[in-house]
Structure formats: C-alpha cells, structure tokens
C-alpha cells in the first residue's frame, strides 16, 4: 500500500493522516460547543482583574 510493504510503517503513515483528519473532524463537529462559561463564584483575583482594567 502506498508503495510500502512493512505493516508497521504503513500503519504509522496511515495513523498519522487519520489522526490529523480526526482532529479536523472533531474540531468541526465541536466548533460551537462549549462556549458557555460555567457559572462560578468570582474569586477575588477576578475582581482585582476588573479593578485593574477599570483603572487603566
């Protein structure tokens, strides 16, 4: 396959391409998922961050 004979080499080649495509597909399917930021109590540092931003 692909001019290669060794099973392990062909596997490495195929798995590399497949996993990259897998990443692409995963990203596309989940493109809009997970955008909501979980509601948690604001820790003090987040408040400080806002204060610093405001003072600037």
């Amino acid at each position, binding site marked *: 396959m692909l001019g*290669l004979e060794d099973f392990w080499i062909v596997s490495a080649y195929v*798995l*590399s391409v497949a996993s*990259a495509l897998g990443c*692409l597909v995963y990203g596309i399917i*989940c493109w809009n*998922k997970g955008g909501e930021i979980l509601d948690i109590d604001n820790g003090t540092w987040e408040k400080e961050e806002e204060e610093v931003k405001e003072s600037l």
Partner: protein
Amino acid sequence: MGVFEAIIIILYIFATGYLGYLGYRHTKTSTDYMLAGREIHPMVMALSYGATFISTSAIVGFGGVAGVYGMSLLWLAFLNIFVGILIAFVFLGEPTREMGRRLGAHTFPELLGKRFQSRFIQIFAGAVIFLFMPLYTTAVLLGGAEFVQTIFHIDNFTISLLILALVVGAYVLAGGLKGVMYNDALQGCVMLVGMLILIFLTYRVLGGINEAHKSLTDMAPLVPDNLKAIGHQGWTSSPKFGWGDKSYNMWWAVISTIVLGVGIGVLAQPQMAVRFMTVKSRREINRAIAIGGLFILLLPGVVYTVGPLSNVFFYEKEVIQGKILLNDEENKKVVILPEGATDESFALTIPINPKSEIILGENGSPDIVRPRAIAIARTGGRVDKIIPTYIDRAMPRWFGIIFLLTLLSAAISTLSSQFHAMGTSAGRDIFEQVAPRYKPTDRATISITRIGIMIGLVASIFLAAKPLRDYIAVSTALFFGLCASAFLPAFVGALFWKRMTKLGAILSIVGGFIVSGIWMLFFYSKTAGGIGLCMMLTGKTTLLTSPNWPVVDPIIVSLPISIILAIIGSLLTKPPDSKHIKECFGKNKK
C-alpha cells in the same frame, strides 16, 4: 542575494516587528503579559502551540535522524498528533484552562502550586524551569544563529547569535505572551507553507508517492553494515525488535528515546501547558484542535517522510554538472564547481563510493558527477547536514529562502516561548513566592517578569559560548525528559485525581526529577557520555553496559517511578480538604 529573496526577508522582518508592537499595545495587565489576557483567538493558539512545539531540531535534527533510520520515525509524527494534540487538547487542555481560571493561576508552576496548596511546589517547579530551560534555549539559539548567518550573509557567528537573541528578546519583553503568540502565528504560517511546498516538490522530483516509496524500499540492501548490525532493515521497514543483543539497539533507540521521550515529554512542557490557559472557553480549545492536528501532520510528518526519501534522491536522482576541480581518489572525494556558480566558494565536495559515476566532459561539455550515495554517506556522516543538503540540491533555488525562513521561524517561535517561560518562572514562581511579604502591584508583576526574561536571556547567550557548546547538544533530550518525569504525573493527577495530596505531588515531582537526573548522569549513554560526570567518578561511561540499557531513554525508568511515588504519597496522607477541591474542580462536577 536576489530581489525576490530580499523582498521576502524585508516583509518577514516588518511583520515580526509589527506583531511585536501589536502585542505591546494590547498588553495592559499582568494577565495580558503572562496569559495573553485569557482571550486569545483559537487559530492563534493552535498555530502558536504547534510552532512553539516544533523547533529547528525537529526539522533538521530529527529529519536527519529519519534520513538515517528511516520511516519508523513516523510513529513519532503519529504520537505528536494523537497524543500531543488530540489527547492533550481534549483531556488536558480544557481541564487546565478551567482549573487555571478557577485558581487564578498565571503559570504552570502556579497551577500545580495552588492545586496542591504548596508554595514549595511552585518554587521548585519554577526553579527546575528557570535552571534547566536555558540549556534547551541555548541549543535552539545556536541552531537559529546559523540561519541568521546564512540569510543575512553575516560572517561572525557571535554577532548572528546576539542579533537573534536580542530581536526575539525585544518582542518578548515588550509584548509579553500576546507578542509571542501573534508572532508564533506568523511563524506557524511560514512553516506550514514551507512544508507543504517541500512534500509536494519531493514527491514530484521522485516520480510520485508510490514510485518514491518503492524506490526507497528497493534500496534496503544498501543499509551500511554498522546500521544493519544494530537492527536496521531498510528505510521503509521497522527495525528488529528484541532484548539482550546489540542487534536490537536501533529499535530501543528509535522507539524508546524518540517516540516515547519526545512524544510524551511534550505534554508536561511548561511553555506548552500554559497555552491552554490563554483561551476563554472549551469552544476555543475545540476549534484549535482542528488546526493543531493538521499543523502537526504537516510539520513532523513531512520531515520524517522527506528525510528517508532523501536517500532516493541522492542515490538515484542527483546529478551535478559543472567543472571538476579535484578528483581525490585516495580520500574518496571529488570537488566540483556546479554550472552557473559564480566563484569557488560554491564548489561542492562529494564523497565518492564504488557506485558513483564520474564522467569527464569532452569538447567543452560539462563534467558530470552522480554521487549514487545514501544520505548519510552523501553528507560525509553528518546527520544534521542531510536535510539542508537535500534542500540545496533537490529543491529549486527559490525554495531556499522559504525553507531558511521556515527554519528560522521554527527557532524563533520556540525561543520566544522559552524566554517567556523563564521570565514567568523567575518572576512569578520564584521571586514572588520566596518573598511572600512583598505583594507586588499588577504593574510590578510585569516588571519582575521582564527582569526574569532578561536574566534568562543573558544566561542563554552566556551558555552559547564556544567551550560549553558540546554539552548543549544533549540538553534538549535532558530537558524534555526532566519535565516529563517531574511534572507529568503531578499535572495529570492535579486535573483528574481528587485524592492526590500535597505529599504525593511533592514526592512525585522531586522524585521524578532526581531519578531522571541520576539516570541521565549515570545510565543513559547519550547524556552520561556527553556530560562526563560518570566517567570522571567511576571511569566508565555508563554504570550498566550490557545491551540495551545504555540506549533506554530515562523516561521509561523515571516516569513509572514518579507515578508510583505520587500514588504512595497521596495514599499515605489524608485527602485534601473538600472545600479546596470544590474550588479547584467546581461544584457541578462529581
């Protein structure tokens, strides 16, 4: 230098300067400086992750290794995609981002320190990074300086080194992580374009995918005897597998060192992990995966294919026409001035073997030399020269500058992240923790980090001095291995094992570090030999000489020990306070 080349270089320099300036303009708070404001675009994040990950050693160094050992290196490409992107982003990235946000962590050591409620962990991790990263940084600096020399025609190596260090240092200092990541995105694009053209042209020169692979397979009988003896079975075959005999050394060298060491090591690299904390939500991480996977396929994937295929080019296709200046039969080399060369500095020295063809031109026609050599022989035994020689000889002239910029981009993107990580570890993780009474203002934190960056910068330049350069070569492996053993179990445990305690983390981090260090100093031949402490103390290069211990990567020994220590330490102490766990993981999770 041609007009085309000059234009490309000027555009590149302008873009770099502009993006650094943009980073500076967009940096107002310490969160901007250390974490790019936690609002970076997913494409920028993905390109930055990939570009930082892939340094010149991945392209030239490992590409050359693939040219020697063959396509079994593709397992590293696969691991880099599957583990380095998919697993890392999905299973580590999102929890890191979320926990980092909850705990207000601005650096990787701070994440570990706050999760385990231990200032010691933050300081120790910061110190490991600050003390050992310069070794890795210097290796990249040295490589990058060579490209600066070539691109800008600078004779003095030290000046090239200083130019590179200062230019990169400038935009890191000014722009913080935003400056770094904007430039990473530019550099990532350059790298992508370079690699796409390279693989396309390579398959074209060699007659197509099937034809190229078949030619390489047919070359298997040409593997040199010394490589056959350690298990090399051809560039399109996997090495011989087994234990207890020298003939299995290649399998253990390739699989354990390269594949496991670098493939897994990347997960716990602090400058990589911190990038997960630069995006706003899970959605950005998901989007980044799409680009990240393709990027890693095209970077190492192309290189570990082109490296082995260069053998086909040098053996079957390379023809040099020109004027033979010297035919040294005794030393088996020919010096030929290629057609069109303007002066003798462009003359090529070609190692000659019994299969080489030398045809003297008659009646004014040019002399012809066909090296008919495998890649490692063609470069006179120098692994690092395989890829550059291939590019120079097989690719069209205009590709030369593109590839040089690709390599320079790989170096700069890695360097910038290293400088930044050294700065944050010195400033935030060590200084601010060691002096707890000093509560810096937001502005002061940025200044302290900048001082840390400058110290790291100076240390790296200092280490690049000539007498120390031999030790630098082994440093990349050292740093990756140290990080993996010291940080990976604690990192994974921090994100997933609520029962993991401060003691478990400390034992794992310190223990992993020590075991890794001892193995590298006394057992692993590449580092033990390079550093020489074992030889000095015991008169032997490594303490265990029976095959195949000296080629077993330290990570195989130190990582399991580090994991065991994490488990034992955690089970020996009482579980962490449930209120703290809720703070780390959030109320909604079980």
